[in-house]
């Protein structure tokens, strides 16, 4: 069966201040699949994810959301399409003067999809799913980094997206919460056919995710073959490093 990929990036080129970050990056993720991108700090992983959701524009290349070329979308169509995309920022990006509950409920309330009673039930359910308890009325500055990551995950999932982009969703959190988040992401991928693209340098999470691992180095994506024997002498050292660690 020929499935339309949930997400496709085609030959992306991007540079900041003359420094090339992406040089011909292409990848595809279908429903029920996930992909982990690792790489050195500052190599352009976050920039790549922001380009994927059109928060930044590439110098050249194409982005497809569920088979649709995003360059051809009108403003209204893009807004509608974004409701089917979840995004977790590296530093949570929760609205600082909204309570955690209001932050998670915000997309539902704004898009006026449900009645307030239904919204409350859905937010409650989503918070339970990510393990957030007794924080409804707290503000983001009152939460630990693990709780903030969970809240950001809940907000990204509240609209039942078909694609989830997560920028280091488990960075700086305890191993227990990390395992919970990884399990939840695996569950969403396998049971709800969510397509996931995440950046991550945490070896534990990479192991838990059971996904293809790609390394972004010098603007190019390299596949890490976890079962490969001897290291390829032509591949970058960082790929070998990850291969050995896995």
């Amino acid at each position, binding site marked *: 069966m020929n499935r339309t990929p949930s997400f496709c990036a085609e030959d992306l080129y991007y540079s900041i201040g003359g420094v090339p970050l992406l040089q011909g990056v292409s990848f595809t993720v279908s429903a029920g699949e996930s992909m982990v991108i690792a790489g050195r700090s500052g190599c352009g992983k976050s920039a790549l994810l*922001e380009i994927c*959701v059109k*928060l930044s524009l590439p110098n050249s290349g194409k982005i497809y959301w569920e088979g649709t070329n995003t360059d051809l979308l009108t403003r209204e169509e893009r*807004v*509608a399409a*974004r*409701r089917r*995309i979840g*995004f977790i*920022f590296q*530093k949570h*990006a*929760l*609205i*600082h003067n909204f309570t955690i509950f209001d932050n998670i409920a*915000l*997309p539902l*309330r*704004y*898009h*006026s999809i449900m009645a307030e009673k239904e919204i409350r039930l859905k937010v409650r359910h989503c918070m339970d799913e990510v393990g957030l308890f007794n924080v409804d009325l707290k503000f983001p500055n009152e939460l630990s980094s693990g709780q903030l990551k969970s809240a950001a995950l809940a*907000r990204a999932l509240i*609209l039942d997206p078909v694609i989830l982009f997560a920028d280091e969703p488990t960075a700086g959190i305890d191993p227990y919460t990390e395992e919970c988040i990884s399990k939840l992401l695996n569950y969403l991928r396998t049971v709800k056919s969510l397509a996931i693209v995440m950046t991550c340098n945490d070896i534990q999470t990479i192991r838990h995710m059971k996904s293809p691992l790609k390394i972004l180095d010098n603007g190019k994506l390299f596949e890490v073959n976890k079962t490969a024997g001897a290291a390829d002498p032509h591949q970058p050292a960082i790929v070998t490093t990850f291969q050995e660690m896995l």
Partner: protein
Amino acid sequence: MRTVYVFIVHAGGFALSFVKVVYGMIGLFYDTMIEIFRYGKRGYASSIKQIVSQILFTGVEAFWLVGIIGLLCGITIIIQATTTMPKFGVGEYFGKILIIVVIRELGPFFTALVVVGRSGAALATYIGNMRVAKEISALEVMGINPIRFLVMPAFVAMVVSMVCLAVYFDIIAIIGGYFVAQANVEIPFGIFMSTVLDALSAKEIVISMAKNLLFGSIIATVSCYYGLAVNNVREVPQAALKSVVGSMIATIVINMIVTIGFYA
């Protein structure tokens, strides 16, 4: 020759950046107007909530400050009038003086200064911090239009607060003026008020309201523009500063244009 060349280059650069900023502000104002008049349920409830909280901050929480300034202005104006004008028959002019000075000029202008210094700077900082924390990017990625969610409510709240505060300023200034007038020339409240109301024409009210609307719109647009233009954390205090300076200059210029246009 080189000095002239450098001067021309700098002047050109300054003019270009000024035009760019003004163009950006006009664009933001246009987008805000579109969002105000766009029909649709999307974001309506969120916008109302934002408008109410902004009115609480910009309008309600500034009542005491505007009240004190208004009271002191009214007192000062009548003291100046009673000390510089002849005592005999001065009461007849109190109304006219208060209308000319307070409702035409000081009411809108002083209220605008309070709103600029208090709420304009806070708004620019608030939006600037949201930009730095990627909260605005988060809104965009959730399909939430930042203009509809942030700028439009701030704009509406600023305009409503500005009008209400200016009317409140006028009333408090007139009451303050009355107490001083009463102490100096023992003028009955009824007569004092009748001189005020006689001097107050529909034209005065319309022009004063138009000034308040314009000032509110300008302060909101300038503050939001500088807030949205922030790229990193170091630019946040600069955004607050630029919003105060820009709003003040724009307010003074608009005030002068309206005064020349209608009274000169």
